[in-house]
């Protein structure tokens, strides 16, 4: 009986921390999902944009003594600008078709961004400190990390704001119109190229914001983007490429599965069930739970 209770307690603890971690996975992924939904672009360099957001947090905390959470707007704006540049230079040519060339171009971008970061910041692992670093909350019998709770709250707020932006504003309506059918949207007077660059900037800005949140409890290094990318892709595929809310839920699913695996089986193999899940989803339900039904 004690064994059963202990197992139950451990699973509940894993699920709770999974939800917290998963929320951040969600906000890491919604940018990718948005870019795919609107332009059918799979930005394999999304993880690198997150990485720059993380370094922004490190610089703020180590060089200026500012809490990474205060620079979220700055990372958002800076990464949105870098994202627009990336769109103008590379992805403009691939709008509308998720082709293999597009994927290769994105991988090229990822490598370039990664190595620029290595040249600027060095190859070492860096960390940032925030107000909440190292603090814990005891919630009944459970033990929750304060930075993760804060990051989760920010993630929920950011996702909610993006949904609000897309659902209520005129700009959001135009974005959704382009996502549904670019040609028809153009016919009724939507400036599609303007919408595209805006949507891509939003996607990149979200990546930067997510990075600055993540860095409060996760260290950064130049290739951290490649380490995060699998989770981002899995969260997006499970939730459904193109659906913001779905992707956020996909992130939470990933977090729970990962934490439960780590707690009950083996933390070194915590991502393997996720890869299996990705394969199953791609084989049997490539649109995920809420994804676009196309191609």
């Amino acid at each position, binding site marked *: 009986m004690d064994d059963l209770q202990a197992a139950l307690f451990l699973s509940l603890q894993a699920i709770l921390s999974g939800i917290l971690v998963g929320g951040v996975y969600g906000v890491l992924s919604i940018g990718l999902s948005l870019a795919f939904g609107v332009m059918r672009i799979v930005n394999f360099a999304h993880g690198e944009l997150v990485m720059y957001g993380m370094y922004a947090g490190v610089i703020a905390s180590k060089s200026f003594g500012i809490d990474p959470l205060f620079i979220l707007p700055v990372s958002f704006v800076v990464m949105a600008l870098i994202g627009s540049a990336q769109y103008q230079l590379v992805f403009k040519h691939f709008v509308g078709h998720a082709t293999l060339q597009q994927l290769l171009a994105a991988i090229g971008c990822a490598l370039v961004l990664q190595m620029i970061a290595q040249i600027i910041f060095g190859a070492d692992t860096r960390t940032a400190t925030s107000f909440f670093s190292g603090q814990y909350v005891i919630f009944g019998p459970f033990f929750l990390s304060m930075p993760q709770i804060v990051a989760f709250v920010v993630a929920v707020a950011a996702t909610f704001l993006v949904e609000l932006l897309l659902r209520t504003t005129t700009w959001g309506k135009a974005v959704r119109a382009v996502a549904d059918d670019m040609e028809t949207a153009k016919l009724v007077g939507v400036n599609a190229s303007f919408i595209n660059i805006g949507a891509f900037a939003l996607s990149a800005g979200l990546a930067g914001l997510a990075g600055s949140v993540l860095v409060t409890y996760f260290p950064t290094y130049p290739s951290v983007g490649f380490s995060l990318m699998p989770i981002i892709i899995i969260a997006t595929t499970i939730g459904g490429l193109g659906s913001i809310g779905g992707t956020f839920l996909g992130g939470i699913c990933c977090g729970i599965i990962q934490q439960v695996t780590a707690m009950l089986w083996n933390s070194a*193999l915590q991502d393997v069930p996720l890869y299996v899940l990705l394969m199953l989803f791609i084989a049997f339900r490539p649109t995920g739970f809420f994804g676009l039904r196309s191609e």
Partner: protein
Amino acid sequence: MEAALPESARRGVAKPSSEAEARRRRAFIYGLVAFLLVASLPFLPVNNYIIAAVVRALIFISLGQAWNVVAGIGGLLSLGHGVFLGIGCYTTGILFNMYGVPPWVGVWGGVVLSLLVALVMGSMTLRMRGVFFALATVAASLAMVQISRHFVDLTGGADGLALKFFGNSWWAAQSRTPAPFLYASLAFVTLYYWITRWILNSKLGLEMQAVRDDEVAAAAAGVAVFRTKMLGLLVSAAMTALAASLYMQFYMAIDPEAAFGLSQAIQLQLPALIGGLGTAWGPIIGGAVMIFLSEVTNWGGTKIGVSGVDILVYGLMLLVVVLYAPKGIVGSVLRNAMKGADR
């Protein structure tokens, strides 16, 4: 009318003109000269560093040629060919270190295992289209990174696996000097060139190109699409695992990132992408360019004290090729020189 046909349909129909015949002969002579030049390197006054760099180029040409079969001829962007490279390296290495099986035999274990994994991977992913197939292969190789890190007793974990060194030994396929590897890798490149040529002109190759150019039309014309893709993947997996033995014997060590990591997967693709997808000459020219540039930039990088410049150059090469020369060097720069010749 003719221009509307995909390239795969036109090939073999057009009669080679005498001019094309001359170009074909010239390409053959250039190839022969390059072959003899590389083969005579150990007798020329060049140091072992240069020879080792040439061996690296030849190994990546072989691996790139293997990837070219599935991606260039078959149009399937596999980002997971590290899986087959890694399986080939680890199987050869583990069989040698733990059971004393010489690599000459061990490599076939790697080939068989790769074929089995390709069968499983293929049956799950080959019905997917384009990007989803690519993402699934990424997932497969990243899962392998974690798995190979986990089974420390077998694979040496994150530190990797180093072959026991026996000095100059035929039995262990090891050598203190790079010259024997030069001949082995040159043999691989030549063999793989002819295999690619043969596939391009075989029924399988024509069917693969038809599926690549238009899957629906190929199916309507009676091509068994799934079976064709699967055969292409199996051939490519076996070629990769076979060349992996060469990689393992030359580098003497393998670790999870070098085997299954994304950067390695990208290095396997660059020769074909730079040189020209779906051509037998592409990976050869592209692999030579890739290793040359990475050697030069690494040398320059150490001069100014910055590491990783080669990866930066890989990324830039990838961008330049995809954006400005999607047909690679053979398809754009050498287009006129090689018109009508066997590419």
